[in-house]
């Protein structure tokens, strides 16, 4: 369970975000404006923050910049009705760790929070293990059941991303954003075929694939 601060002025949106985080087993607290949000974030220990870009009083961009000035390194997911790519860049430059445009799918919001939490936990990880796979982040090598497997650069990044977020469903969109670094919808099949290629290299006969397809949602690394 993680402590998450929801800084959101709209009551209905805040309630929906908190309910979704609660469903994922997190403890969510709310601040309804920028000033009280900054106050709470600096006073209490949170594991992650969801931050509305437009807030009464202190706006989201200034708030996250103030947090970083005070060396508060809590991961921040910025939520905004502004979809312009420049706005996304501005949000990330100010110190946000991820940026999601409204209206969003609440499950995807929760998934992005999980990604941020995992990244924090595993920042120091050198080798990721699971499902019989050993992924060495320093040597950039992969072993399946102790046997070395040659992966292409993007295949390695895809596997690393899924393993880092083990147990969480990752949508095609977030996979495309985090692995390839592009912020557009790549279409339904593109990520599927990359996953299929990766599976061909890491799956072993007689054992279910560690990468599961969650129909209509995305992919999940189990193991």
């Amino acid at each position, binding site marked *: 369970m993680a402590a998450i601060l929801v800084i959101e002025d709209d009551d209905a949106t805040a309630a929906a975000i908190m309910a979704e985080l609660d469903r994922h087993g997190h403890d969510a607290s709310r601040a309804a404006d920028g000033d009280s949000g900054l106050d709470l974030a600096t006073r209490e220990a949170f594991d992650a923050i969801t931050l509305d870009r437009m807030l009464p009083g202190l706006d989201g961009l200034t708030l996250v910049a103030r947090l970083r000035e005070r060396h508060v390194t809590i991961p921040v997911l910025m939520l905004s009705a502004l*979809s*312009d790519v*420049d706005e996304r860049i501005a949000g990330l430059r100010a110190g946000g760790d991820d940026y999601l445009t409204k209206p969003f799918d609440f499950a995807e919001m929760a998934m992005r929070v999980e990604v941020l939490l995992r990244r924090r936990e595993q920042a120091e990880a050198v080798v990721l293990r699971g499902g019989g796979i050993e992924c060495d982040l320093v040597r950039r090598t992969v072993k399946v059941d102790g046997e070395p497997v040659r992966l292409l650069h*993007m295949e390695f990044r895809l596997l690393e991303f899924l393993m880092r977020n083990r147990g969480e469903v990752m949508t095609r969109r977030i996979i495309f954003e985090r692995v390839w670094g*592009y912020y*557009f919808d*790549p279409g339904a099949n593109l990520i599927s*075929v990359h996953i299929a290629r990766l599976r061909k290299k890491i799956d072993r006969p007689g054992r279910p694939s560690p990468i599961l397809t969650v129909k209509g949602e995305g992919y999940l690394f189990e193991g």
Partner: protein
Amino acid sequence: MLGAVFVIGLIAMLGVVYAATARDLTARSDRILHAAAQRLLQVPADQLPDRIRYELRRDRAGFNYLSLIAADGTPVVGNIRLLRPLPPGLPVDVEGGSRGPLRLVALHTREGETLLVGRDISLLRDLRRTILETLIVSGLLTLLCVTTAAIWFSRAPLRRVRALQRASREIAAGDFSVRMPIAGRHDELDQFATTVNATVEEVGRVVAQVKGATDAIAHDLRTPLTRVRATLNALHHRPHDAVEVTAGIRQATADLDLVLERFAALLRISELEAGRRRAGFRTIDLGILVAQVAELYEPLAEDRGITLSVATRPWAVDGDDKLLFEALSNLLDNGIKFGRPGGRVAIALVEDAQGRAIEVRDDGPGIATGERDAVLRRFHRGQDMQDIPGSGLGLSLVVAILHLHGFRLSLSDAAPGLCVRISLPPASA
């Protein structure tokens, strides 16, 4: 304004000519008066009255006036009298009653008498009046000629200005097909008209797109929204059927997702068309970009049994790599999606007689000539493509990205299949 300056200048010039001429004539007359007076002052005092009488007798025409007045003011001899004393040595004009105007100078003799020497200046006055009249008449004639010439010569430019005004009124009324007339003289008016025409063309293009988009939005967003409304209405009337409620909510969510997806795409297009994204421009290598896009789509092509071939070379262009990647991804995705299963798709940087370009070719069914323009319009879906997923906004997005870069997209027959060509402007190639 120019006319007023000309008239003022003309009046000033003629005034100066008149004043200079009048001053010169008066100065000549004064010199004659002084010479005559000096001559008489040389005559011994006792002979002076006789000399004056002699001079007066000799002047049959009666132009000259002479008088000698004693120191006590008594007239000694002469044909003029003074009503008031004159400053000595300074010629003055005297309106001489029946005699007409005089120019008169008074000088003192050594014996204290006053010698008056005068000349009739009627002729001088007549001459000055004649000069003034001549100058006024010639001035008026000049003015008339110049005004006539100005009207004559400005008729053509005025006609052009009126034509420009007419065109601008029609454009302001919303007719963006109208263009400012260009005379082909390469003058300021032509330069102005060319600039305005380019602006009108761009505004017309944007307005047409906005109108097209508005129509398309009204049509295409209405469909899923109507479906959502119908679903909710049905749920409202049958609230106890849990299976139907779940299915209805899922359907409504899917329909709303489609609406949101289309909105998001439309917003991106308008951002791009507003030209605000040039901030991300830098020098990029198109060759590397094309190779990366091909690498991303190669598994998808393989999945459909399509052979994807890539031909790149290092080409530096100014652009936004993320946006160009998105545009090229879209084209390659279309090529693979609409190409022939088991066929070929090629992405290549080409340089030929038409210049440098990026080409994406497939050997699928292609697009009929009549439908090629339509596919670039928003929300357009091809006749046989209704069961293939997509919002119908992909190519509009590609066009918007390419337009931002100054690149041009054209569709042609690859016989068989479709050839999408992105032409690069010579400057950025």
